[in-house]
Protein backbone atom coordinates (compact mmCIF):
# COMPACT_ATOMS: atom_id res chain seq x y z
CA UNK A 1 0.00 0.00 0.00
CA UNK A 2 1.58 3.18 -1.14
CA UNK A 3 0.16 5.17 1.75
CA UNK A 4 2.08 3.07 4.19
CA UNK A 5 5.29 3.42 2.23
CA UNK A 6 4.94 7.18 2.20
CA UNK A 7 4.42 7.06 5.93
CA UNK A 8 7.57 5.02 6.48
CA UNK A 9 9.68 7.23 4.25
CA UNK A 10 8.49 10.39 5.96
CA UNK A 11 9.16 8.85 9.34
CA UNK A 12 12.70 7.79 8.51
CA UNK A 13 13.66 11.01 6.79
CA UNK A 14 12.27 13.12 9.63
CA UNK A 15 14.02 10.90 12.08
CA UNK A 16 17.38 11.29 10.39
CA UNK A 17 17.13 15.03 10.00
CA UNK A 18 15.37 16.07 13.20
CA UNK A 19 18.33 16.45 15.56
CA UNK A 20 19.75 19.17 13.36
CA UNK A 21 16.59 21.20 13.52
CA UNK A 22 15.18 20.60 16.95
CA UNK A 23 16.87 20.16 20.31
CA UNK A 24 17.95 16.48 20.16
CA UNK A 25 16.91 15.63 23.70
CA UNK A 26 13.39 16.73 22.84
CA UNK A 27 13.29 14.55 19.74
CA UNK A 28 14.61 11.61 21.73
CA UNK A 29 11.84 12.16 24.25
CA UNK A 30 9.31 12.13 21.43
CA UNK A 31 10.77 8.92 20.03
CA UNK A 32 10.60 7.17 23.38
CA UNK A 33 7.02 8.19 23.96
CA UNK A 34 6.10 7.35 20.39
CA UNK A 35 7.39 3.83 20.93
CA UNK A 36 5.51 3.63 24.21
CA UNK A 37 2.33 4.81 22.50
CA UNK A 38 2.70 2.35 19.65
CA UNK A 39 3.20 -0.47 22.12
CA UNK A 40 0.13 0.65 24.02
CA UNK A 41 -1.85 0.90 20.82
CA UNK A 42 -1.11 -2.74 20.10
CA UNK A 43 -3.19 -3.55 23.14
CA UNK A 44 -5.84 -0.85 22.94
CA UNK A 45 -6.26 -0.21 19.25
CA UNK A 46 -5.69 -3.66 17.90
CA UNK A 47 -6.83 -6.00 20.68
CA UNK A 48 -9.39 -3.73 22.25
CA UNK A 49 -8.04 -3.92 25.79
CA UNK A 50 -7.69 -0.70 27.82
CA UNK A 51 -4.90 -1.00 30.35
CA UNK A 52 -4.62 1.74 32.93
CA UNK A 53 -1.37 0.52 34.34
CA UNK A 54 1.17 0.71 31.56
CA UNK A 55 3.25 3.21 33.48
CA UNK A 56 4.49 0.29 35.57
CA UNK A 57 6.27 -1.18 32.53
CA UNK A 58 7.73 2.13 31.41
CA UNK A 59 8.94 3.09 34.85
CA UNK A 60 10.26 -0.21 36.13
CA UNK A 61 12.16 -0.95 32.94
CA UNK A 62 13.73 2.45 33.45
CA UNK A 63 14.69 1.70 37.03
CA UNK A 64 16.22 -1.67 36.21
CA UNK A 65 18.12 -0.30 33.24
CA UNK A 66 19.37 2.63 35.28
CA UNK A 67 20.43 0.40 38.12
CA UNK A 68 22.41 -2.09 36.06
CA UNK A 69 24.12 0.64 34.09
CA UNK A 70 24.95 2.79 37.08
CA UNK A 71 25.65 0.33 39.86
CA UNK A 72 26.78 -2.77 38.00
CA UNK A 73 28.43 -0.95 35.14
CA UNK A 74 26.88 -2.80 32.25
CA UNK A 75 27.05 -1.26 28.81
CA UNK A 76 23.96 0.60 27.64
CA UNK A 77 22.65 -2.02 25.25
CA UNK A 78 22.72 -4.60 28.03
CA UNK A 79 21.01 -2.11 30.29
CA UNK A 80 18.24 -1.64 27.78
CA UNK A 81 17.91 -5.39 27.44
CA UNK A 82 17.72 -5.81 31.20
CA UNK A 83 15.02 -3.16 31.48
CA UNK A 84 13.05 -4.67 28.65
CA UNK A 85 13.26 -8.11 30.21
CA UNK A 86 11.92 -6.68 33.47
CA UNK A 87 8.97 -5.20 31.62
CA UNK A 88 8.30 -8.48 29.87
CA UNK A 89 8.25 -10.31 33.20
CA UNK A 90 5.93 -7.72 34.72
CA UNK A 91 3.77 -7.89 31.62
CA UNK A 92 3.41 -11.63 31.98
CA UNK A 93 2.50 -11.26 35.64
CA UNK A 94 0.00 -8.45 35.11
CA UNK A 95 -1.45 -10.10 32.03
CA UNK A 96 -2.01 -13.46 33.65
CA UNK A 97 -3.93 -11.80 36.45
CA UNK A 98 -5.86 -9.27 34.44
CA UNK A 99 -6.90 -11.25 31.38
CA UNK A 100 -9.45 -13.17 33.41
CA UNK A 101 -11.67 -10.13 33.41
CA UNK A 102 -12.71 -7.74 30.70
CA UNK A 103 -13.72 -4.18 30.06
CA UNK A 104 -13.77 -1.88 33.06
CA UNK A 105 -12.71 -4.62 35.42
CA UNK A 106 -9.65 -5.35 33.31
CA UNK A 107 -8.71 -1.68 33.40
CA UNK A 108 -9.17 -1.53 37.16
CA UNK A 109 -7.01 -4.57 37.79
CA UNK A 110 -4.19 -3.12 35.72
CA UNK A 111 -4.56 0.12 37.66
CA UNK A 112 -4.38 -1.70 40.98
CA UNK A 113 -1.32 -3.67 39.95
CA UNK A 114 0.36 -0.53 38.69
CA UNK A 115 -0.29 1.17 42.01
CA UNK A 116 1.38 -1.74 43.74
CA UNK A 117 4.42 -1.23 41.54
CA UNK A 118 4.36 2.48 42.36
CA UNK A 119 4.43 1.68 46.02
CA UNK A 120 7.30 -0.74 45.54
CA UNK A 121 9.19 1.92 43.59
CA UNK A 122 8.66 4.27 46.49
CA UNK A 123 9.91 1.80 49.07
CA UNK A 124 12.85 0.00 47.47
CA UNK A 125 16.03 1.87 48.32
CA UNK A 126 17.64 1.31 44.94
CA UNK A 127 15.06 3.42 43.16
CA UNK A 128 15.90 6.41 45.29
CA UNK A 129 12.26 7.05 46.17
CA UNK A 130 11.39 10.70 45.75
CA UNK A 131 14.90 11.57 44.61
CA UNK A 132 14.83 9.08 41.81
CA UNK A 133 17.68 7.09 40.36
CA UNK A 134 20.05 9.89 39.45
CA UNK A 135 23.27 10.15 37.54
CA UNK A 136 22.69 7.22 35.22
CA UNK A 137 25.69 7.18 32.89
CA UNK A 138 25.06 6.85 29.19
CA UNK A 139 28.15 4.74 28.79
CA UNK A 140 29.70 3.30 25.70
CA UNK A 141 27.52 1.33 23.34
CA UNK A 142 29.02 -2.15 22.93
CA UNK A 143 31.95 -0.70 24.83
CA UNK A 144 32.95 1.38 21.82
CA UNK A 145 30.57 4.16 20.92
CA UNK A 146 30.44 6.99 23.43
CA UNK A 147 26.80 7.78 24.00
CA UNK A 148 27.76 10.94 25.80
CA UNK A 149 27.99 12.51 22.36
CA UNK A 150 24.46 13.78 21.66
CA UNK A 151 24.35 12.63 18.03
CA UNK A 152 25.50 9.12 18.90
CA UNK A 153 22.85 8.85 21.57
CA UNK A 154 20.27 10.18 19.18
CA UNK A 155 20.88 7.64 16.46
CA UNK A 156 20.92 4.88 19.05
CA UNK A 157 17.47 5.94 20.20
CA UNK A 158 16.28 6.31 16.62
CA UNK A 159 17.44 2.80 15.84
CA UNK A 160 15.62 1.42 18.86
CA UNK A 161 12.48 3.27 17.91
CA UNK A 162 12.54 2.12 14.32
CA UNK A 163 13.24 -1.44 15.43
CA UNK A 164 10.38 -1.49 17.89
CA UNK A 165 8.07 0.21 15.44
CA UNK A 166 8.91 -2.30 12.74
CA UNK A 167 8.23 -5.16 15.15
CA UNK A 168 4.82 -3.75 15.97
CA UNK A 169 4.12 -3.19 12.30
CA UNK A 170 4.98 -6.79 11.47
CA UNK A 171 2.86 -8.04 14.36
CA UNK A 172 -0.16 -6.07 13.26
CA UNK A 173 0.07 -7.34 9.71
CA UNK A 174 0.65 -10.96 10.62
CA UNK A 175 -1.94 -13.71 11.10
CA UNK A 176 -1.48 -13.17 14.82
CA UNK A 177 -2.44 -9.56 14.36
CA UNK A 178 -5.53 -10.55 12.42
CA UNK A 179 -6.69 -12.72 15.28
CA UNK A 180 -6.20 -9.80 17.65
CA UNK A 181 -8.37 -7.64 15.45
CA UNK A 182 -10.95 -10.38 15.37
CA UNK A 183 -10.96 -10.47 19.15
CA UNK A 184 -11.41 -6.72 19.25
CA UNK A 185 -14.29 -6.81 16.81
CA UNK A 186 -16.23 -9.71 18.24
CA UNK A 187 -14.72 -11.83 20.94
CA UNK A 188 -17.44 -14.48 21.20
CA UNK A 189 -17.17 -15.12 17.50
CA UNK A 190 -13.42 -15.53 17.74
CA UNK A 191 -13.97 -18.04 20.51
CA UNK A 192 -16.51 -19.91 18.48
CA UNK A 193 -14.02 -20.07 15.63
CA UNK A 194 -11.81 -22.08 17.91
CA UNK A 195 -9.17 -19.54 18.89
CA UNK A 196 -7.74 -19.69 22.39
CA UNK A 197 -8.62 -16.09 22.96
CA UNK A 198 -7.01 -15.81 26.39
CA UNK A 199 -3.67 -16.96 25.07
CA UNK A 200 -3.76 -14.38 22.29
CA UNK A 201 -4.68 -11.64 24.69
CA UNK A 202 -1.90 -12.59 27.05
CA UNK A 203 0.61 -12.65 24.24
CA UNK A 204 -0.51 -9.24 23.03
CA UNK A 205 -0.29 -7.93 26.56
CA UNK A 206 3.21 -9.22 27.10
CA UNK A 207 4.35 -7.86 23.76
CA UNK A 208 2.85 -4.49 24.55
CA UNK A 209 4.47 -4.46 27.98
CA UNK A 210 7.85 -5.50 26.62
CA UNK A 211 8.01 -2.75 24.05
CA UNK A 212 6.79 -0.24 26.61
CA UNK A 213 9.71 -1.35 28.72
CA UNK A 214 12.05 -0.88 25.80
CA UNK A 215 10.86 2.70 25.57
CA UNK A 216 11.26 3.18 29.31
CA UNK A 217 14.77 1.80 29.50
CA UNK A 218 15.87 3.96 26.59
CA UNK A 219 14.28 7.01 28.12
CA UNK A 220 16.25 6.52 31.31
CA UNK A 221 19.47 6.55 29.35
CA UNK A 222 18.41 9.69 27.49
CA UNK A 223 17.60 11.65 30.62
CA UNK A 224 20.07 9.82 32.84
CA UNK A 225 17.37 9.71 35.48
CA UNK A 226 14.57 7.32 36.47
CA UNK A 227 11.92 8.78 38.70
CA UNK A 228 8.53 8.19 40.27
CA UNK A 229 6.88 10.28 37.58
CA UNK A 230 7.34 7.36 35.22
CA UNK A 231 5.40 4.92 37.43
CA UNK A 232 2.66 7.32 38.45
CA UNK A 233 -0.86 6.69 37.16
CA UNK A 234 -0.86 10.08 35.45
CA UNK A 235 1.66 8.58 33.09
CA UNK A 236 -0.75 5.75 32.34
CA UNK A 237 -3.40 8.34 31.57
CA UNK A 238 -1.05 10.30 29.33
CA UNK A 239 -0.31 7.32 27.15
CA UNK A 240 -4.02 6.72 26.64
CA UNK A 241 -4.30 10.32 25.51
CA UNK A 242 -1.44 10.06 23.06
CA UNK A 243 -2.91 6.95 21.51
CA UNK A 244 -6.43 8.30 21.40
CA UNK A 245 -5.37 11.65 20.00
CA UNK A 246 -3.15 10.14 17.36
CA UNK A 247 -5.63 7.51 16.35
CA UNK A 248 -6.31 4.16 17.98
CA UNK A 249 -5.97 1.22 15.69
CA UNK A 250 -3.86 3.06 13.14
CA UNK A 251 -0.22 2.35 12.52
CA UNK A 252 1.18 5.87 12.59
CA UNK A 253 -1.45 7.37 14.87
CA UNK A 254 0.37 6.88 18.16
CA UNK A 255 3.53 8.43 16.76
CA UNK A 256 1.59 11.52 15.78
CA UNK A 257 -0.18 11.55 19.11
CA UNK A 258 3.04 11.31 21.06
CA UNK A 259 4.63 14.09 19.02
CA UNK A 260 1.70 16.40 19.60
CA UNK A 261 1.42 15.77 23.33
CA UNK A 262 5.15 15.97 24.08
CA UNK A 263 5.44 19.01 21.86
CA UNK A 264 2.54 20.61 23.66
CA UNK A 265 4.05 19.95 27.06
CA UNK A 266 7.36 21.34 25.97
CA UNK A 267 6.35 24.45 24.10
CA UNK A 268 3.40 25.03 26.33
CA UNK A 269 5.57 25.01 29.42
CA UNK A 270 5.42 28.76 29.55
CA UNK A 271 1.66 28.46 29.84
CA UNK A 272 2.30 26.78 33.15
CA UNK A 273 -0.78 25.12 34.53
CA UNK A 274 -2.75 25.68 31.35
CA UNK A 275 -0.99 22.68 29.87
CA UNK A 276 -2.97 20.42 32.19
CA UNK A 277 -6.21 22.12 31.27
CA UNK A 278 -5.37 21.96 27.58
CA UNK A 279 -4.55 18.27 27.86
CA UNK A 280 -7.91 17.69 29.48
CA UNK A 281 -9.73 19.69 26.84
CA UNK A 282 -8.06 17.69 24.08
CA UNK A 283 -9.06 14.50 25.86
CA UNK A 284 -12.68 15.60 26.09
CA UNK A 285 -12.83 16.75 22.49
CA UNK A 286 -11.26 13.53 21.29
CA UNK A 287 -13.77 11.40 23.14
CA UNK A 288 -16.78 13.42 22.09
CA UNK A 289 -16.05 14.30 18.53
CA UNK A 290 -12.71 13.04 17.39
CA UNK A 291 -12.62 9.39 18.34
CA UNK A 292 -10.70 8.31 15.30
CA UNK A 293 -7.84 10.56 16.26
CA UNK A 294 -5.70 12.65 13.96
CA UNK A 295 -4.52 9.89 11.68
CA UNK A 296 -7.88 8.18 11.71
CA UNK A 297 -9.73 11.32 10.71
CA UNK A 298 -7.10 12.04 8.10
CA UNK A 299 -7.55 8.59 6.62
CA UNK A 300 -11.31 9.04 6.41
CA UNK A 301 -10.90 12.46 4.81
CA UNK A 302 -8.55 11.08 2.21
CA UNK A 303 -10.86 8.19 1.43
CA UNK A 304 -13.87 10.49 1.13
CA UNK A 305 -12.09 12.90 -1.14
CA UNK A 306 -11.35 10.07 -3.48
CA UNK A 307 -7.64 10.63 -3.58
CA UNK A 308 -6.02 7.29 -4.26
CA UNK A 309 -3.00 6.51 -2.16
Amino acid at each position, binding site marked *: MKGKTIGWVVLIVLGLVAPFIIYPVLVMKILCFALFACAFNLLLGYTGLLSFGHAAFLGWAGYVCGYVVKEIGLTPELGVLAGTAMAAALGFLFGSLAIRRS*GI*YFAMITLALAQLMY*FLALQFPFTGGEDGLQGVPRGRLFGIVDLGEPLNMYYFVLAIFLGGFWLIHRTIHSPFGQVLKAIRENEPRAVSLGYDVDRYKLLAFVLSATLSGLAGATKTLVFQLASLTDVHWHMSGEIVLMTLLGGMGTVFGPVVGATVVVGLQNYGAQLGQWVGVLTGVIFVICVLAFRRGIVGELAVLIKRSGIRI
Partner: protein
Amino acid sequence: MDILGVPIQALMGQLLIGLINGSFYAILSLGLAIIFGLLNIINFAHGALYMAGAFFAWIAMDALGIDYWVALVAVPIVVGAIGMLIERTMLKHLYRLDHLYGLLLTFGLALIIEGLFRYRFGISGQSYPVPELLSGGFNLGFMFLPKYRAWVIAVSLVVCFGSWYIIERTKLGSYLRAGTENPQLLQAFGINVPLMITLTYGFGVALAAFAGVLAAPLFQVNPVMGSNLIIVVFAVVVIGGMGSIMGSIITGLGLGLVEGLTRVFYPEASAVVIFVIMGVVLLLRPAGLFGRER
Protein backbone atom coordinates in the same frame (compact mmCIF):
# COMPACT_ATOMS: atom_id res chain seq x y z
CA MET B 1 -2.29 -3.35 77.82
CA ASP B 2 -0.72 -4.47 74.61
CA ILE B 3 -2.05 -6.26 71.57
CA LEU B 4 0.69 -7.85 69.50
CA GLY B 5 3.22 -5.57 71.11
CA VAL B 6 1.27 -2.43 70.41
CA PRO B 7 -0.28 -0.44 73.23
CA ILE B 8 -4.06 -0.49 72.98
CA GLN B 9 -4.13 3.29 73.08
CA ALA B 10 -2.13 3.54 69.90
CA LEU B 11 -4.32 0.92 68.28
CA MET B 12 -7.58 2.61 69.21
CA GLY B 13 -6.23 5.98 68.15
CA GLN B 14 -5.20 4.78 64.72
CA LEU B 15 -8.46 2.89 64.28
CA LEU B 16 -10.40 6.03 65.02
CA ILE B 17 -8.36 7.97 62.49
CA GLY B 18 -8.94 5.10 60.10
CA LEU B 19 -12.67 5.42 60.69
CA ILE B 20 -12.48 9.09 59.76
CA ASN B 21 -10.68 8.31 56.53
CA GLY B 22 -13.13 5.46 56.00
CA SER B 23 -16.02 7.91 56.24
CA PHE B 24 -14.61 9.83 53.32
CA TYR B 25 -14.04 6.66 51.37
CA ALA B 26 -17.61 5.64 52.07
CA ILE B 27 -19.23 8.88 50.90
CA LEU B 28 -17.08 9.10 47.80
CA SER B 29 -17.45 5.48 46.81
CA LEU B 30 -21.18 5.73 47.44
CA GLY B 31 -21.39 8.51 44.85
CA LEU B 32 -19.26 6.55 42.42
CA ALA B 33 -21.31 3.39 42.93
CA ILE B 34 -24.57 5.22 42.35
CA ILE B 35 -23.24 6.75 39.15
CA PHE B 36 -21.81 3.49 37.92
CA GLY B 37 -24.92 1.58 38.76
CA LEU B 38 -27.20 3.66 36.60
CA LEU B 39 -24.94 5.24 34.01
CA ASN B 40 -22.35 2.53 33.69
CA ILE B 41 -19.68 5.17 33.78
CA ILE B 42 -16.64 5.21 36.00
CA ASN B 43 -16.64 8.85 37.00
CA PHE B 44 -12.97 9.77 36.99
CA ALA B 45 -13.97 13.36 37.68
CA HIS B 46 -15.27 12.39 41.12
CA GLY B 47 -12.04 13.36 42.85
CA ALA B 48 -11.86 16.67 41.06
CA LEU B 49 -15.46 17.48 41.99
CA TYR B 50 -14.74 16.60 45.62
CA MET B 51 -11.88 19.07 45.46
CA ALA B 52 -14.13 21.62 43.79
CA GLY B 53 -16.56 21.21 46.68
CA ALA B 54 -13.83 21.95 49.19
CA PHE B 55 -12.63 24.94 47.20
CA PHE B 56 -16.08 26.39 46.71
CA ALA B 57 -16.58 26.20 50.46
CA TRP B 58 -13.31 28.04 50.93
CA ILE B 59 -14.09 30.63 48.27
CA ALA B 60 -17.53 31.10 49.78
CA MET B 61 -15.96 31.83 53.11
CA ASP B 62 -13.09 33.91 51.82
CA ALA B 63 -14.87 36.03 49.24
CA LEU B 64 -18.50 35.96 50.30
CA GLY B 65 -18.29 35.44 54.04
CA ILE B 66 -20.53 32.41 53.83
CA ASP B 67 -20.02 30.19 56.81
CA TYR B 68 -19.48 26.47 57.03
CA TRP B 69 -23.05 25.47 57.81
CA VAL B 70 -24.51 27.26 54.81
CA ALA B 71 -21.73 25.93 52.60
CA LEU B 72 -22.50 22.38 53.72
CA VAL B 73 -25.88 22.67 52.04
CA ALA B 74 -25.23 25.17 49.27
CA VAL B 75 -22.01 23.85 47.82
CA PRO B 76 -23.28 20.32 47.03
CA ILE B 77 -26.29 21.87 45.30
CA VAL B 78 -24.07 24.10 43.16
CA VAL B 79 -21.68 21.31 42.27
CA GLY B 80 -24.58 18.93 41.68
CA ALA B 81 -25.98 21.40 39.20
CA ILE B 82 -22.62 21.58 37.45
CA GLY B 83 -22.65 17.81 37.33
CA MET B 84 -26.04 17.75 35.72
CA LEU B 85 -24.80 20.20 33.14
CA ILE B 86 -21.87 17.92 32.38
CA GLU B 87 -24.18 14.98 31.98
CA ARG B 88 -26.59 16.79 29.69
CA THR B 89 -23.96 18.27 27.44
CA MET B 90 -21.31 15.59 27.29
CA LEU B 91 -21.93 12.26 28.95
CA LYS B 92 -25.28 11.77 27.30
CA HIS B 93 -23.62 11.30 23.93
CA LEU B 94 -21.51 8.41 25.10
CA TYR B 95 -24.07 5.96 26.36
CA ARG B 96 -24.34 4.07 23.12
CA LEU B 97 -20.57 3.64 22.92
CA ASP B 98 -18.13 1.42 24.74
CA HIS B 99 -18.13 2.21 28.49
CA LEU B 100 -14.49 3.07 28.34
CA TYR B 101 -15.20 6.33 26.56
CA GLY B 102 -17.11 7.52 29.59
CA LEU B 103 -14.06 6.80 31.70
CA LEU B 104 -11.83 8.69 29.30
CA LEU B 105 -14.15 11.67 29.10
CA THR B 106 -14.38 12.02 32.84
CA PHE B 107 -10.62 11.60 33.04
CA GLY B 108 -10.25 14.55 30.70
CA LEU B 109 -12.75 16.54 32.77
CA ALA B 110 -10.77 15.79 35.89
CA LEU B 111 -7.64 17.18 34.23
CA ILE B 112 -9.49 20.33 33.20
CA ILE B 113 -11.02 20.98 36.60
CA GLU B 114 -7.80 20.29 38.44
CA GLY B 115 -5.80 22.38 35.99
CA LEU B 116 -8.09 25.35 36.40
CA PHE B 117 -7.84 25.28 40.16
CA ARG B 118 -4.09 24.78 40.06
CA TYR B 119 -3.76 27.75 37.76
CA ARG B 120 -5.76 29.94 40.04
CA PHE B 121 -4.52 28.78 43.43
CA GLY B 122 -1.18 27.06 43.03
CA ILE B 123 -0.51 23.77 44.75
CA SER B 124 0.00 24.86 48.31
CA GLY B 125 -3.12 24.57 50.34
CA GLN B 126 -5.52 27.09 51.70
CA SER B 127 -6.56 26.98 55.29
CA TYR B 128 -10.18 26.54 56.24
CA PRO B 129 -11.03 27.06 59.89
CA VAL B 130 -12.96 24.54 61.92
CA PRO B 131 -16.41 25.98 62.66
CA GLU B 132 -16.77 27.44 66.14
CA LEU B 133 -19.40 25.02 67.24
CA LEU B 134 -17.16 22.07 66.56
CA SER B 135 -13.84 23.24 67.89
CA GLY B 136 -12.25 21.61 70.85
CA GLY B 137 -12.50 17.94 71.53
CA PHE B 138 -13.36 15.00 73.73
CA ASN B 139 -10.80 13.44 75.95
CA LEU B 140 -11.38 9.76 75.43
CA GLY B 141 -8.57 8.65 77.65
CA PHE B 142 -6.61 6.84 75.00
CA MET B 143 -6.61 9.88 72.81
CA PHE B 144 -7.97 13.35 72.43
CA LEU B 145 -10.61 13.28 69.70
CA PRO B 146 -11.25 16.67 68.13
CA LYS B 147 -14.98 17.37 68.01
CA TYR B 148 -14.84 18.10 64.32
CA ARG B 149 -13.55 14.67 63.48
CA ALA B 150 -16.27 13.05 65.51
CA TRP B 151 -18.76 15.17 63.60
CA VAL B 152 -17.33 13.96 60.31
CA ILE B 153 -17.85 10.34 61.27
CA ALA B 154 -21.37 10.99 62.50
CA VAL B 155 -22.60 12.99 59.54
CA SER B 156 -20.99 10.62 57.04
CA LEU B 157 -22.80 7.68 58.55
CA VAL B 158 -26.08 9.58 58.45
CA VAL B 159 -25.62 10.63 54.82
CA CYS B 160 -24.48 7.21 53.69
CA PHE B 161 -27.22 5.25 55.33
CA GLY B 162 -29.73 7.89 54.42
CA SER B 163 -28.80 7.50 50.77
CA TRP B 164 -28.93 3.75 51.06
CA TYR B 165 -32.38 3.98 52.58
CA ILE B 166 -33.63 6.22 49.81
CA ILE B 167 -32.30 3.95 47.14
CA GLU B 168 -33.24 0.62 48.60
CA ARG B 169 -36.43 1.38 50.47
CA THR B 170 -38.32 4.14 48.73
CA LYS B 171 -40.31 4.36 45.53
CA LEU B 172 -37.90 6.86 44.03
CA GLY B 173 -35.11 4.49 44.77
CA SER B 174 -36.94 1.63 43.19
CA TYR B 175 -37.18 3.58 39.94
CA LEU B 176 -33.43 4.04 40.13
CA ARG B 177 -32.85 0.36 40.65
CA ALA B 178 -35.24 -0.51 37.87
CA GLY B 179 -33.46 1.87 35.56
CA THR B 180 -30.23 0.09 36.35
CA GLU B 181 -31.70 -3.22 35.32
CA ASN B 182 -33.78 -2.33 32.32
CA PRO B 183 -34.05 1.29 31.27
CA GLN B 184 -36.14 0.67 28.18
CA LEU B 185 -38.84 -1.15 30.09
CA LEU B 186 -38.89 1.58 32.68
CA GLN B 187 -39.22 4.19 29.98
CA ALA B 188 -42.15 2.21 28.59
CA PHE B 189 -43.80 2.51 31.95
CA GLY B 190 -43.76 6.25 31.55
CA ILE B 191 -40.84 7.15 33.76
CA ASN B 192 -38.63 9.86 32.31
CA VAL B 193 -35.44 7.83 32.34
CA PRO B 194 -33.09 10.43 30.82
CA LEU B 195 -34.14 12.92 33.47
CA MET B 196 -33.57 10.34 36.14
CA ILE B 197 -30.11 9.67 34.79
CA THR B 198 -29.26 13.35 34.85
CA LEU B 199 -30.51 13.72 38.40
CA THR B 200 -28.62 10.65 39.47
CA TYR B 201 -25.36 11.98 38.15
CA GLY B 202 -26.05 15.26 39.85
CA PHE B 203 -26.76 13.51 43.13
CA GLY B 204 -23.62 11.38 42.95
CA VAL B 205 -21.54 14.44 42.26
CA ALA B 206 -23.26 16.40 45.02
CA LEU B 207 -22.21 13.68 47.43
CA ALA B 208 -18.63 14.16 46.33
CA ALA B 209 -18.87 17.91 46.89
CA PHE B 210 -20.41 17.32 50.29
CA ALA B 211 -17.42 15.21 51.23
CA GLY B 212 -15.27 18.07 49.99
CA VAL B 213 -16.88 20.58 52.32
CA LEU B 214 -16.46 18.14 55.18
CA ALA B 215 -12.82 17.76 54.28
CA ALA B 216 -12.02 21.46 54.05
CA PRO B 217 -11.31 22.09 57.75
CA LEU B 218 -9.46 18.79 58.05
CA PHE B 219 -7.03 18.70 55.19
CA GLN B 220 -5.52 21.67 53.46
CA VAL B 221 -7.76 22.75 50.60
CA ASN B 222 -5.51 22.24 47.61
CA PRO B 223 -6.08 21.34 43.96
CA VAL B 224 -4.52 17.89 44.17
CA MET B 225 -6.48 16.65 47.17
CA GLY B 226 -8.91 14.89 44.88
CA SER B 227 -6.51 13.13 42.61
CA ASN B 228 -4.63 11.69 45.56
CA LEU B 229 -7.86 10.29 46.89
CA ILE B 230 -9.67 9.11 43.78
CA ILE B 231 -7.42 6.19 43.04
CA VAL B 232 -8.01 4.76 46.50
CA VAL B 233 -11.74 5.32 46.15
CA PHE B 234 -11.76 3.39 42.87
CA ALA B 235 -10.20 0.49 44.67
CA VAL B 236 -12.88 0.73 47.34
CA VAL B 237 -15.67 0.67 44.80
CA VAL B 238 -14.17 -2.25 42.95
CA ILE B 239 -13.69 -4.22 46.16
CA GLY B 240 -17.18 -3.46 47.34
CA GLY B 241 -18.73 -4.35 44.05
CA MET B 242 -19.41 -1.65 41.54
CA GLY B 243 -23.05 -0.71 41.69
CA SER B 244 -23.68 -2.12 45.13
CA ILE B 245 -24.71 0.71 47.45
CA MET B 246 -24.35 -1.03 50.76
CA GLY B 247 -21.24 -2.70 49.48
CA SER B 248 -19.43 0.55 48.88
CA ILE B 249 -20.44 2.04 52.24
CA ILE B 250 -19.32 -0.96 54.24
CA THR B 251 -16.20 -1.44 52.19
CA GLY B 252 -15.31 2.22 52.53
CA LEU B 253 -15.57 2.18 56.28
CA GLY B 254 -13.94 -1.23 56.53
CA LEU B 255 -10.99 -0.28 54.39
CA GLY B 256 -10.48 2.88 56.38
CA LEU B 257 -10.17 0.70 59.46
CA VAL B 258 -7.81 -1.69 57.70
CA GLU B 259 -5.64 1.24 56.65
CA GLY B 260 -5.58 2.50 60.22
CA LEU B 261 -4.60 -0.92 61.47
CA THR B 262 -1.83 -1.18 58.91
CA ARG B 263 -0.47 2.16 60.05
CA VAL B 264 0.14 0.71 63.45
CA PHE B 265 2.08 -2.32 62.35
CA TYR B 266 3.61 -1.45 59.01
CA PRO B 267 3.07 2.25 58.26
CA GLU B 268 4.71 2.35 54.86
CA ALA B 269 2.29 -0.23 53.51
CA SER B 270 -0.80 1.69 54.55
CA ALA B 271 -0.85 3.38 51.15
CA VAL B 272 -0.95 0.13 49.26
CA VAL B 273 -2.81 -2.36 51.44
CA ILE B 274 -6.06 -1.40 49.78
CA PHE B 275 -4.68 -2.27 46.36
CA VAL B 276 -3.42 -5.59 47.53
CA ILE B 277 -6.87 -6.38 48.86
CA MET B 278 -8.37 -5.21 45.60
CA GLY B 279 -6.17 -7.52 43.60
CA VAL B 280 -7.07 -10.48 45.79
CA VAL B 281 -10.81 -9.77 45.74
CA LEU B 282 -10.84 -9.34 41.98
CA LEU B 283 -9.23 -12.67 41.52
CA LEU B 284 -11.40 -14.57 43.95
CA ARG B 285 -14.71 -12.74 43.72
CA PRO B 286 -14.58 -10.82 40.46
CA ALA B 287 -17.81 -8.96 41.00
CA GLY B 288 -16.62 -7.57 44.30
CA LEU B 289 -17.57 -8.53 47.81
CA PHE B 290 -21.16 -7.38 47.49
CA GLY B 291 -21.69 -7.00 43.81
CA ARG B 292 -23.46 -8.92 41.13
CA GLU B 293 -21.85 -9.90 37.86
CA ARG B 294 -23.17 -7.90 34.94
